[in-house]
């Protein structure tokens, strides 16, 4: 989906481009934090693009782990409220799996009644995506249809060709950036485009081994037939799978501070028993296994019903963080074989 002619940018020019952009926007990019890539505000440090996709998804810039919905101040018995406007941001280096996650969340937070804080951040954020030429060990984006090639949802799309990046625009904002900062770009030649296709085909082939595109019926059967009691016995209740998943979006709202304070929206997790426990103390999902089953059902049955897209994008992060050492994807690979 190349909407304009492809351009080429060298590694040095990319830094110059980001420097210029960071004059007007907060530029977020993968940088090294504790020896590993993490998305953070870029202040000119080396970009950590060669590393695997950061463990904390950049989706947190749209759905923060914790956000202040508004502040309340009581004065003479009357309340006044204030809220912060969304930040103008550019997220650089977002991978195709996280892009698809955002599309799924659009189908939830953007549908029917649009969620205002989410929509505000979505509108004020420019996305510069990066095609995945070297997928991580546990990734299975190809099976979930999210990668390794990004298909829409970005303003600019980069492909690492080694000596520099091939750049394509995917939106008016992207075209604007290419025009406004044209001196950093040069025309890409046909060899560059061939190289991109070769690299991405190679990346795709690497992933073929990692399982077929899941068949919804087979998945439903696999979920119905799984030994959830055993899975629950081994679950250490860290909630990591839900905290790290770029599609997981459940939250709880709490007011902190009396009489003045803040209404906070915080990430929540269906892996925790308190998530489904009712005020009476009754819990429809009392065992860890039942909660794990729900997590899978949400991703592979409920979210698809609502959005038409799977609630899993194949980023493999849940398996990376699982304290019970469960390879979440092997569950389906075995079931669908």
């Amino acid at each position, binding site marked *: 989906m190349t909407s304009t002619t492809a351009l080429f940018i060298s590694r040095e020019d990319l830094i110059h481009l980001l420097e210029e952009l960071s004059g007007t926007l907060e530029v977020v990019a993968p940088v090294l934090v504790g020896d590993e890539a*993490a998305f953070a*505000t870029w202040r000119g440090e080396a970009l950590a693009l060669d590393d695997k996709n950061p*463990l904390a998804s950049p989706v947190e810039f749209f759905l923060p782990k914790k956000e202040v919905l508004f502040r309340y101040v009581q004065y003479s018995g009357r309340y006044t409220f204030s809220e912060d406007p969304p930040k103008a941001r550019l997220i650089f280096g977002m991978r195709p799996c996280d892009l698809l996650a955002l599309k799924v969340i659009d189908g939830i937070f953007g549908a029917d009644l649009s969620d205002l804080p989410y929509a505000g951040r979505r509108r004020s954020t420019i996305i510069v995506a990066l095609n995945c030429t070297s997928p991580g060990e546990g990734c299975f984006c190809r099976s979930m249809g999210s990668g390794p090639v990004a298909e829409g949802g970005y303003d600019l799309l980069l492909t690492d060709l080694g000596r520099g990046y091939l750049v394509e625009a995917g939106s008016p904002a992207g075209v604007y950036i290419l025009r406004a900062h044209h001196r950093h770009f040069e025309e890409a030649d046909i060899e560059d485009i061939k190289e991109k296709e070769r690299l991405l085909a190679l990346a795709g082939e690497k992933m073929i081994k990692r399982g077929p595109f899941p068949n919804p019926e087979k998945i439903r059967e696999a979920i119905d037939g799984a030994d959830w009691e055993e899975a629950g016995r081994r679950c*250490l209740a*860290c909630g*990591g799978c839900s905290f790290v998943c770029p599609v997981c979006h459940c939250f*709880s709202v709490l007011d902190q501070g009396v009489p003045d304070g803040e209404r906070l929206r915080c990430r929540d997790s269906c892996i*925790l028993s308190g998530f489904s426990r009712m005020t009476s103390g009754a819990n429809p999902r009392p065992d860890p296994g039942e909660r794990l089953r729900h997590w899978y059902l949400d991703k592979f049955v409920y979210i698809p019903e609502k959005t038409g897209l799977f609630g899993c994008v194949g980023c493999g992060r849940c398996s990376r963080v699982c*304290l*019970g050492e469960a390879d979440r994807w092997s569950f389906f690979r075995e079931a669908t074989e």
Partner: protein
Amino acid sequence: MEKIATICVYCGCGCGLVLHVEDGRVVGASPSPAHPVSRGRLCVKGWLAADFVHHPDRLKTPLVRRGERMARVSWDEALSLSARRLREIREESGPDSLAILTSAKGTNEENYLLAKLARAALGTNNVDHVARLCHAPSVAGLGIALGSGAMTNPIRSLLSSDAILVTGSNTTEQHPLVAATILEAQARGATLIVADPRRTQMAELADIHLAPRLGTDVAWTNGMLNLIIGRGLIDEDFINERTEGFSALKELALRYTPAAVERITGIPPGDLEKAAAAFGEAPRAGVVYAMGTTQHSSGTDNVLALANLVLATGNVGRDGTGIYPLRGHQNVQGACDMGALPIFYSGYQKVEDPAARRKMEAAWGTDLPATPGLTAVEMMEAAEEGRIRGMIISGENPMISYPDRGQVIRALRSLDFLAVADIFPTETTALADVVLPVASFAEKDGTFTSTERRIQRVRRAVTPPGEARPEVEVAAELLRRFSVTADYASPEEVMGEISSVTPSYGGVSSRRLGISGLSWPCPSPDHPGTEILHQGSFPIGRARFYVVEQQHLPEDLDYPLFLTTGRSLFHFHTGTMTRRTHLLDRERPKATVDINPADAAALGVRSGTMVVVESATGSLEIEARLTAEVPMGTVYIPFHFAEAPANQLTTRTLDPTSKIPGLKRTPVRIRRADG
């Protein structure tokens, strides 16, 4: 958004954490993928470690008691008042009428300066901290048996084990990252043996579960030795070359036959045989233990019995072997290392050793007291008796965490002066004359030392709220008010002083501490640190076997049940942080007493029934929860909850060597609250 790599504030695992900071506020936490322990994973408390930092309850200004009210004052006033009151008491009653409790939640630098404050400024060795209630028996027991009280091997070493004995450790809840490592080892083929009276998740997942009666650890450990010796599974070369005292141990073990052990512990001989065979036959075996082993009036004996087991089988000094006392707080190892103990300077240099004392006197430019100080629980007794009159408590909440709460209240109320430094108001700050607001882990620089002796950097991610300050600054201010030089521009400079006087930290500097930190001993700047202890020799030359007998456990017909206490996965210690983390508090919003269904039926109690639990020292009303996780005759209460403080019931029966109270076994009786 900034991301700052630091270390988790909760348990001793010492996981690498990345704090997410937006507009000067910590908004989230995620695991550090490159960190050697967390390896990109965290437990639920770790994932939520940032949530309490900006809670509105945070203490923001120094407070001074004016009658029944607490008044806001300046730092200068609060500190000068504290120094003046402490000096007055010292003049009237001598330096040993003062005491300091430091915090295992504080950094090494803070603990070092507070220990220095006690010794160099107040002039007393009355300094201790929560290690007294957790691993004092390890420091004492492993200290005399192996020459070092710390974990012998790094956590990762367990991945190479062929058998792992876990005892007195609810590992999946208390040290989840260690549990994950053990379960990974089990998946690779290691045999997992769990000894625990409760059927914890760890016990549930074990290959062999031994369920001894409370307080009978020495018996079954000696029983395993009996079988290991009988089957010729001891490591004779190791025993001959590297240990002494085995013949006496052999005689002792002979008496602990499987039948005798069954009478004492209730463990069927077949189970004990399976455990002994799995442990004895393993080329590499490790022993992991925690509070279930140490918090007994026979705590040191329990540790010595386990040390005998690893020594007799030659399981020391190699990858995959070793003894692993799991430390409960993220820096309880460091607080011990820094000399926040009444008998040691930093690096376990004895205060009674004239050479060590002269060295510290030269370094600190002052005279130092020669007599050992009081331990934590002894301090409380001395306070009640008026022998201790002034106290500084830094980041501890003895009102919830210490045994016999009734006595703790009397003790703290008896004090003429009490200053408490903390991040939140607690049941202990409520009794203070001066309250000092201090920085949380996310608001200060310094180092923590994890359970595996890994010294790691803690980084300031945000500024402290209001006027709160890092305790390094508070301690330095107080030192200066006692005319002790304390011109530290930064915590790095404090570490400079620590490394100059502490041989095991001799090569440590903040600059050297990368993502993997450094494991002590690290004696010189070019030393790579020591991950596995005792490889060629022991610090005491040869390791020693100690003959330890099972204590006689008297029955008390008035109190027919036994209460054991512990912590939940979702809370930490006295709950000051986790009970202000709403997802965690939601998981466990209230205290319950776990009762076996058979015991409950006899009492006419169902899940949800309010019951009264009574012991010789106190009573409390609490909701019952029926579960087969506890065996008949045993009940369990987590001690986090101020609404139903388990330590209202516990007693101060101390282990004679380490002075740890026997928190894990209190005789109690239970009745319905309405009858």
